């Protein structure tokens, strides 16, 4: 292997390491909203200590006769084991559809770092698209927190490509 080839290989390695680092540190991370108001069913497990048997508490020393048999309760195992009641089913209250948002919900996400928009009756999280938009970030920033149907249709009309990208960002529908 010549010196020239070694330098070229070193350059290729540096290029690959740098590219890998760029891909790793700029990778997109999904940030789907979690429905916070969804009730979580929990099992109720009885943790009460069993009622102590009065007989079990009696110490042998309390018995006047050393060799006398200590009376054994009829069913000690059942009395000592913890009582486990059946889990009470939690009936969730009529929970709202977590993927259905009002315009007021959309309006809360009106910043560059958290940008939602309602377009044609659907709600989209456009945050990750702001810096990917081929036409620059400003047109997307203008949609944040509002119904952007008119602006979107004014820019793209019924074009298929923007619509195909938009559908990937959908997070729900408008109430």
């Amino acid at each position, binding site marked *: 292997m*010549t010196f*020239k080839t070694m*330098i070229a290989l070193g350059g290729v390695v540096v290029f690959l390491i*740098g*590219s890998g680092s760029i891909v790793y540190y700029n990778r997109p991370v999904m940030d789907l909203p979690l429905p916070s108001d969804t009730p979580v069913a929990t099992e109720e497990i009885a943790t009460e200590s069993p009622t102590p048997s009065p007989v079990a508490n009696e110490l042998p020393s309390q018995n006047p006769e050393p060799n006398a048999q200590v009376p054994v309760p009829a069913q000690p195992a059942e009395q000592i084991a913890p009582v486990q009641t059946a889990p009470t089913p939690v009936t969730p209250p009529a929970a709202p559809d977590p993927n259905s948002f009002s315009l007021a919900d959309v309006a809360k996400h009106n910043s560059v770092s958290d940008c939602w928009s309602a377009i044609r009756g659907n709600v989209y999280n456009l945050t990750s698209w702001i*810096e*990917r*938009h081929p036409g*620059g*970030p400003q047109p997307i920033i203008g949609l944040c927190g509002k119904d952007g149907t008119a602006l979107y249709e004014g820019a793209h009309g019924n074009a298929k490509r923007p619509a195909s990208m938009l559908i990937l960002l959908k997070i729900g529908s408008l109430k």
Partner: protein
Amino acid sequence: MHPLASRLVLRYSWALMFLWFGVEQLLAPTKWITYLPELTGYFPIPGIMFVRLNGWMEIVLAFALMLGIYTRFSALLLAIHLAGIAVTSGGAIGVRDATLATVGLAIAFDKPDPWTLDAKLDSKNT
């Protein structure tokens, strides 16, 4: 002045241009996203990542050109890259970039100047 000094100036100035643009793209990618052609919006990678990868490639190739390692190959790659930018940009910017791309072709078509590592290693071997 050395009769081949113009080739050194040409190679270094062209490489420094890519080095500057590459560093800028790496450090402030958001400034360059607006220059991305529309088709890159359909790539499955974020715009920032695309700009940074492009900048990193330009930096590595610019260093190769400055060192003079695989000079002709590096110059050819950068010339094709710049020609691609010229085609997607179009207009006055496209004409300027296409002209700059021909500078790279001129470097690629000629044999490496005496200050390149290529020339030094070749002269040592012969």
